[in-house]
């Protein structure tokens, strides 16, 4: 029972790190970035190459994965995405799906279509048994890292000048601009950080979710669920939504394996009918 809860939390935390960048970009710029998963995939593959081919220790590879996706995100944002902000949602969908297709085929070409695995150090394999509760070492690591990140994000959002600007920009972009906040710069940084976090999530998730070229498509639905259920006006919303989704998914598969896939979709529809703005969203003027 508690093991299931533990697994669900780890899974949910992972989803949060993967998806939170998407929530922020959607909330801030009203930009539909379906290619978000591609940045996660990039982080995952960077880790695979670093650890398996170059012998970098796993824990050292994690920040590098973040950095790689961060840089990639910043580059893409400055060179490509900026041209698309002003376009309609439908064109953004076309654009980002095009990017997903390209990334899928490119990774297939470079790395091959088979699943990749990260060589984990022995210390992270197996699990502890604490009072009959099985705690996977690797999942514990995920919870620790993702928990720390979430706390840090929250602190930055609430306690720093940048966070204040970001929140202001999310609430009302035009007024924020009028107050002299450089919304574009705020957004560029946010986008890059969101991509970096996705990359970190991809690196951590390779072990649990599997990593192959269709990763961005396979998990797109999950990301979207997190964002819609959680709402886009804060990061606590997506965080709680991720946890809910993770626990529901894991528990559903454990207790009612025959209904496994029904559970999350039913929950999602129920939530969205009850609270169309998301479970934790606010009705915005937009």
């Amino acid at each position, binding site marked *: 029972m508690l093991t299931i809860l533990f697994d669900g939390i780890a899974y949910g935390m992972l989803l949060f790190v993967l998806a939170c960048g998407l929530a922020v970009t959607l909330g801030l710029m009203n930009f539909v970035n379906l290619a978000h998963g591609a940045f996660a995939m990039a982080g995952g593959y960077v880790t695979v190459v670093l650890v398996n081919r170059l012998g970098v220790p796993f824990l050292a590879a994690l920040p590098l994965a973040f950095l790689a996706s961060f840089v990639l995100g910043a580059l893409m944002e400055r060179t490509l995405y900026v041209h698309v902000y002003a376009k309609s949602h439908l064109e953004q969908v076309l654009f980002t799906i095009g990017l997903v297709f390209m990334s899928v085929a490119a990774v297939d070409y470079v790395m091959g279509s088979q699943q990749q695995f990260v060589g984990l150090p022995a210390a992270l394999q197996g*699990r502890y048994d604490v009072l009959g509760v099985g705690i996977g070492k690797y999942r514990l690591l995920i919870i620790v890292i993702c928990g720390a990140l979430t706390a840090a994000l929250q602190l930055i959002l609430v306690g720093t000048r940048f966070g204040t600007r970001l929140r202001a920009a999310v609430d009302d972009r035009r007024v924020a601009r009028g107050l002299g906040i450089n919304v574009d710069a705020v957004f560029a940084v946010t986008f890059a950080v969101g991509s970096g976090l996705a990359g970190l999530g991809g690196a951590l998730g390779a072990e649990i979710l*599997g990593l192959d070229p*269709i990763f961005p498509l396979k998990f797109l639905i*999950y990301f979207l669920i997190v964002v819609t259920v959680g709402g886009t006006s804060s990061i606590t919303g997506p965080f709680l939504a991720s946890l809910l989704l993770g626990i529901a998914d894991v*528990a559903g598969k454990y207790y009612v394996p025959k209904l496994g896939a029904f559970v999350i979709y039913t929950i999602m529809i129920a939530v969205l009918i009850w609270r169309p703005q998301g479970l934790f969203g606010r009705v915005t003027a937009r």
Partner: protein
Amino acid sequence: MSRNGLVTASAAIVLALSAVDRAPAQDAVKIGLILPMTGQQASTGRQIDAAVRLYVQQNGANVAGKKVEVILKDDGAVPDNTKRLAQELIVNDKVAFIAGFGVTPAALAAAPLATQAKVPEVIMAAGTSIITERSPYIVRTSFTLPQSSVIIADWAVKNGIRKVVSIVSDYAPGIDSETSFKERFTAAGGQLVEAIRVPFQNPDFAPFLQRARDAQPDAIFVFVPSGQGGAFVKQFAERGLDKAGIKLIGPGDVTDDDLLNGMGDAVIGAVTAHLYSAAHPSDINKAFVAAFKKANAGMRPNFMAVGGYDGMHLIYAALKKTNGATEGDALVGAMKGMAWESPRGPISIDPETRDIVQNIYVRKVEKVGNELYNVEFATFEAVKDPAKAAKK
């Protein structure tokens, strides 16, 4: 988006281009190879495509005085694509064979076409038992899941495994392997405590494994499609099932050669029954593995690759026997009863069912040098599809 001009213009260009009928080359034998080259099953397509190319490269593109031409199409494992592509290949390209077929629904979708057009359909991957019964023109060079599931059930009983939980992917091959394992295993006195079916597209095996673990079996019988084995084994180890003394058994799809090295040491000791291991100790196989790796940047061939390799051999051999005649009945007739030495060992085509008869090996994952291999330690010779034998 007022790009109507662009759209209409490009539509016109594309239409014009596609209007040019592809003129069929004289005296060439065409083989339509339909594989999932993109999407979830892409690794299967890649293995088979590589093996087919290797075979043509090794044996030349001329058989019985005719030039062989392979036309590769990607169906993304979506059956209505498969059907349309097969139909186009038959009607427009006038192919003499359709081959490939990564998943069962794809193979089944094309079956009525094979019958209608009298074109041999060579199954190089899909492993559900019923496929060959759906058309008298279907011949299989891959495997059926009951073949290995029955053997591993026998082995389990002999080795003191009494209590088993099965985990299979919820589609035809998975259910096939679950059914045949269950029948044989329970008939011999074993107990199948729980039969879990996991969704075909499944990101996280952990909850299912936890459920299996909580049932405290002696072993877990597992079937997941080629390509998903790695994620399964990772989770198996992470749940500590290996430490809890629970054995991992099943058909060899889970310890796929393609992924085996990435799975880590947790997989050592897994016992599976299967048709092919890259470590099969024969000269033919050693040459095959070396050539395959050389041609594909070190990629190790798996059981899908031998299915493709042998499928091409069957096509070549049938053409030789008919002296290059491409009439469907003659080709299928030539294929029936054909026997040869494959990298996986001696194999033949059952003249009655057109299904493959092959050795099934019981193997254990071991470390050989720095790499993990399925090392064969027992052989069951000339195994026919048990599901079809049972129906008689």
